[in-house]
């Protein structure tokens, strides 16, 4: 049993083999780390040459960490759709999805391992970035626990955007369309959730409700900010304060002080993303299952739709 458990899933094995044998993989890792390293070196160089902050201050470490952490999140958000938005549509375009479905592999196994293979590569990028983050430790001011929480946000963000990519690649036949739609949704998560949150907060404020709208917690940047060292944690209320919402920070619930009793934004984000991932993966599995249990669910919906259409036709005539 143990031996069987160690056997790599064929889809996962094939994806690893295909992905890692080309020159693109080391190139992407190199470029990715190069950009992060540039951020770290660039920040330090700017700081050293600055007229105001020259010298070695206690805030160098946390500030460099925040810059690196936010850039890493944006890079993960940018890279994930590229790796996932073509996994199912690509199989369709290569005309291999039917052949794969014809094997003993279940649709769930195909979808989950495709996602896992893509996410594994993103995890490789994140893990490879650890030495760059290690530079922060030369300066101090950042706890290992805070870095750990930030990495949980990265993983969950990669998983969520990955699931969105896989979902889009299952509903759109063409990879190009799937990639574009995935990037639009990712953009909504990064910008739209906050914009919508600000709009809703404004509406709620008029009714005397000063709480932060739930949708804002889906924003990965908001989640990441809540993992930052103490002096940077006021991210969410201060963000809303920028838009004149909530007035002083103290009036907004959702500040870190308020969170002490409940969950931190990154934890809310974790739960919200988890629900999104599970729902999207179930729908994706149903979509690519032709017959059998999930196929039956699909047919049930189709039949209902057909019956409704037929009823409409009768009514009209």
């Amino acid at each position, binding site marked *: 049993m143990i031996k069987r458990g160690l056997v790599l899933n064929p889809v996962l094995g094939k994806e690893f083999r295909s992905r890692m044998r080309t020159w693109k993989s080391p190139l992407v890792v190199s470029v990715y780390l190069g950009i992060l390293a540039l951020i770290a070196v660039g920040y330090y160089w700017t700081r050293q040459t600055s007229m105001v902050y020259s010298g070695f201050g206690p805030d160098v470490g946390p500030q460099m960490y925040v810059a690196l952490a936010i850039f890493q999140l944006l890079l993960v958000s940018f890279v994930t759709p590229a790796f996932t938005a073509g996994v199912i549509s690509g199989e369709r375009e290569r005309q291999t999805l039917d*052949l794969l479905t014809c094997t003993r592999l279940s649709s769930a196994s195909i979808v989950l391992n495709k996602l896992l293979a893509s996410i594994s590569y993103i995890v490789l990028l994140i893990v490879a970035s650890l030495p760059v983050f290690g530079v922060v430790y030369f300066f101090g001011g950042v706890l290992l626990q805070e870095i750990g929480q930030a990495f949980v946000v990265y993983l969950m963000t990669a998983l969520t955007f990955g699931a969105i990519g896989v979902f889009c690649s299952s509903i759109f036949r063409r990879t190009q369309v799937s990639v574009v739609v995935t990037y639009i949704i990712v953009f909504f998560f990064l910008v739209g959730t906050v914009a919508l949150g600000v709009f809703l907060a404004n509406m709620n404020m008029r009714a005397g409700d000063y709480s932060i709208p739930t949708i804002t917690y889906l924003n990965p940047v908001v989640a990441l900010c809540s993992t930052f060292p103490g002096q940077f944690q006021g991210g969410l209320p201060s963000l809303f304060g920028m838009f004149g919402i909530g007035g002083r920070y103290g009036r907004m619930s959702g500040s870190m002080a308020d969170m002490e009793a409940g969950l931190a934004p990154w934890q809310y984000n974790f739960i919200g993303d988890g629900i999104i991932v599970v729902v999207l993966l179930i729908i994706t599995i149903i979509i690519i299952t032709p017959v059998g249990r999930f196929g039956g669910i699909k047919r049930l919906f189709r039949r209902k739709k057909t019956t409704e259409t037929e009823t409409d036709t009768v009514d009209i005539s």
Partner: protein
Amino acid sequence: MLVVEELTKRYGKLTAVDNLSFIVEEGSIFGFVGPNGAGKTTTMRILATLLAPNSGRAWIAGEEVTDNPRRVRQLMGYMPDFFGVYDDLKVGEYLDFYGASYGIPAAQRRRIADDLLELVDLAHKREAYVDSLSRGMKQRLCLARSLVHDPLLLLLDEPASGLDPRARFEMRELLKELQHMGKTIIISSHILPELAEMCTHVGIIEAGQLVANGTIDEITHLVQSGMALEIKVLERGQEARDILENHFGLTGIDGSENHFQVPFGGDEEDLSRILTALVGSGIPVVSFAESTNNLEDIFMQVTRGVVQ
């Protein structure tokens, strides 16, 4: 081995497969023939558990295709009318991947891949990238893939399409070899003669319905019971036509004045009497023969009515 019972598949208002029923016996090679758009691929995809029918059922070795897709997939090997290959894998890796997908232990996969590559004459290409193979080689590799889990039934959708004559010949020889190995094979094509040499049974499908079904001999006989007589005379064609109509009651004569065909359902004695009458009347007969239907004619004849 395969029982198809009143299978129907509709795409919106189009009925691709219409109440289709047929049986394929174990060990036979069943040619599934029909013009483009007749419903061959749809039927194949339903049998391959890739498409759910609107109604009807089908059993492969006793397992219903919609109820037990996982068991059916183990019993059946499917080769679609496209290659479906991963260009970034080597030939050996490609077979190994599908072997693993069918749950074959790693220790056996290497041997199975070697045997199959030997069978399809691609053993020398084991380390070559799939991308580098010719069309015929890719087709043979796909056939090897469909055999990787040693299925009882092979569903081959237009396996010879786009192949040059040599590759077609090689594919034909391969299928014969597979039949000797005891596989039951369903092979679709829109070209009947292509299947004639290798099929034991033929089913002709048009507009989603089976218009003829049986052994090659049975179908030929079925069609020839309404065969034509082709007559060419040097002159006095009209006189010959009058004899056929008035003396033998043959109608529906078609063709030019001195070279015409007439539908004929009689036996050899009738043929002899007609020829004697024509020659006895002094008509200079140049040729007198039953029009020998080749398989293409049979196909045209069988499918014509439905198309019109």
